[in-house]
């Protein structure tokens, strides 16, 4: 699939924006204590990896961002629901990142 750089960046910004919105509302407890936001956001992200050929660096960047937010939140509030929810997001993105990184290491 040939998509030029500008279009790619545009699409990526949209997808990341949508995912960030999902994460934000999920952390605000808008979807309750369900897995649905995880499925939708991670599904979209995996789709964008395939579509836009994103590298593991972006995913690991998200992982580092999430763990930093988690650490700050833990420091301020302890192991509350939001800290743990951030942890779940961290774990899911880490899984994606490790799979991506392994794929890049072993098959490229």
């Amino acid at each position: 699939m040939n998509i030029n750089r500008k279009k790619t960046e545009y699409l990526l910004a949209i997808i990341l924006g949508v995912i960030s919105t999902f994460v934000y509302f999920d952390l605000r407890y808008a979807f309750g204590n369900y897995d649905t936001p995880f499925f939708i956001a991670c599904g979209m992200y995996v789709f964008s990896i395939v579509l836009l050929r994103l590298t593991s660096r972006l995913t690991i960047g998200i992982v580092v961002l999430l763990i930093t937010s988690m650490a700050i939140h833990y420091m301020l509030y302890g192991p509350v629901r939001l800290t743990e929810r951030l942890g779940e997001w961290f774990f899911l993105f880490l899984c994606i990142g490790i799979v991506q990184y392994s794929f890049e290491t072993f098959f490229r």
Partner: protein
Amino acid sequence: MHLLLIKVLTILLMRKHTVAILIAATLFVVPFFWLKPGFVDLGGDAGRLYFLDPFSVTKNLYQQQNLFGASIFAIIPYQLFLALLKQIVLTPTYLISLEHGIQLSVSFYSIYLILRSISKGLSHKKNPVETFTAIAGGLVYVGFITKTGWVTSLETFNQIFLNPLMFYLLLRYVMTSNSLYALCILGLTFLYSQNFGFSSMPQLMSFYPFAIVFLFLYIRVILKKSFPWKNIVLLFMLFVGLHAFQLVPMIGSIFDSKGVGNAYIFSKTAQTSAGAEYFDANRQTLGKLSWGLFQPLNWNGNTLFIAVIPIITFLGFFIKRNTLLAILGSFFVITFYLVSANITIIGVRLYRLLFSIPGFLMFRSFDDKWYYVFSFFFTVLFAVSFFLLLHQRRKLVVVSVFLLVSVSVIFRIFPFLQGKHYEGDLFQSNNVPVVFDIDPDLMESLSFVKTLPDDGNALTLPLTLPYFQVIHGKQSGAFVGLSMVRLIGGKDDYPGFWSFGSYQEPMIQALRDADVHKTLQLLSLLNVRYIYRNTDQRILDKFPRYPYYKFDMTIDIPTINSQSTYDDYLRLFPLTTLYEKGFYRIQKLSDTVVRPTVYIPDVVYASQSGAIENMSFRSAYVDPTICLEMFQCDLQQTQQSKLSFTRLSPVTYTFDLDMSGVTDPFLIILSEDFHPSWKLKFNETNDQTFQHVVGNGYANAWVVDPAKTQLSGNVSGIIELTFKRYFVIGNIISGITVLISMSLIIYRIIKKYEHKP
């Protein structure tokens, strides 16, 4: 100034192992400042009494060649090792400090050596960052292991240093195939057998499968060498042979329907109630992802330092693609999922499904059982990432990041290094410290217990719930743990309500009603002859709830509320004082109210109440069907045989029986917990098929019918627990393996000598 500091640090770190050895030595010394001389921490669920008197505990344990012994027999070599060390360090205080020193320093140094070995595979040329990486990794691991378990730790706690040490030796063994490493592995596993036995199965099964898979991938994928499967299989066979002394009885107990292991592995009820339900109950409170990522949180956990190690761990993925990092990342993800156990609803459901696998029940305390495996892979991932991040950076950057990591760890664990973890109080006590100083009178009373004949059990007072003994220190602190009377004194005892088994409710009722006859009958049926009493008022005053019956019983038992009410009640018993000093008193019940360990009942009842309410202290009760079918049920037996016995060991009794004029069936009772492998044999007959039934609700009883057996006059026999054969077989196999190993060493030395010019 900064440059000078960097130069000094670099020179020091470049010197091979110097700094690492210095840090390890410091970590070894630190625990010697934790406990004041004469003070110890011995309580807890596992019973660390082997620090107090390792030789006596070992001797008593060795005699327990039964189902109970099968699960804990593995600790014997370690206890003997401690007994040897105690000859050098002399006091339990220093013995405990020495153990903690080994745990801390060997943990650090093993991780250091692992990382030194692994980092060689990351870079083709020698890089000074290797040393920084290894030391930083060692410190990070030390930080992780400060989490919990240092006070009144379980005997399995040695995993914190054995995991990295064994991994290092395995790594060296698979890399070099040098049999010296194999011998070190075997020697260590033997010395710390309890970490490779039944009670350590969760620790064992959580770490070693991951470690072996990682080693395989490391050798095959990273080093691109062949994996020495033959060597590993040979090592495993020698391991099994060496550990046969504890593995054979353990396997025997697993396949024994009465064994605890059997229920844990095969029982459907255990899998659901003790497994999945227990997991569900703990998951909400203990399944915290943040606790796994930001350890150690006990100490200064509310600073930004908690983010340093996790962030560095993942920054390495940015630098360049590295196979080892990819593999370690996968191990991190899997172990993180297992230790946190609370990731998404689907993840939790999947986790719960794992409990349907036989044996997975052992991981129900997931936060503890997987923690040290997770810590290990977290540390190695951190170190590899640290190396990749810094190996091409300037020295200033390397030293700065190294100092940041070191300071973040040391700052956080500084209270631990100061021994703050010993400052806690005992659960639900009135501020009673967990460390205590040993009362010399206590040790003297236990020495007296050791001299008591093997003719009955002991009742340890005051009674607790479930079965812990409380001993106050001479000055401060207290011991709350397994009974010293049993473990050090070597006398089977009843220290708490749970230990009464099916007699718990009748005993509570008898004590509530202050019914002396009923209490004496119950004690007699339980073969209690001695009363070990701690008259210290502090152990009741300072523990208003736990571990006494007020802890979770709603009833009031006035007879055992205070030492004075105990005095009043016991005054009504036919007791003779054998020993009294300080707070400790040992009394003996009159022979008239004590049933012998092996006896022939004068009346056989069909119910417990019949035996308890009757005046006879030689009666017994069995299942109503057997009672009605075989005996003159609930009536005085018209013919009475006379029996005398000798206790050769807890699993072997011999007896002489006078059956003159006896033609009716009679019962022989052995007041040991019922087990089908208890066998009664007469020397005079080959027909050994006696009906073996449960007597007195818990004991072994054999129905002997003289008409069937053709026995008469004076006969003799033996009662033994045939389960002990597993111990005999195991000991023989272990002995043969030691001989084979010794022969291999001698052969290797001779071969080496022959090859020398």
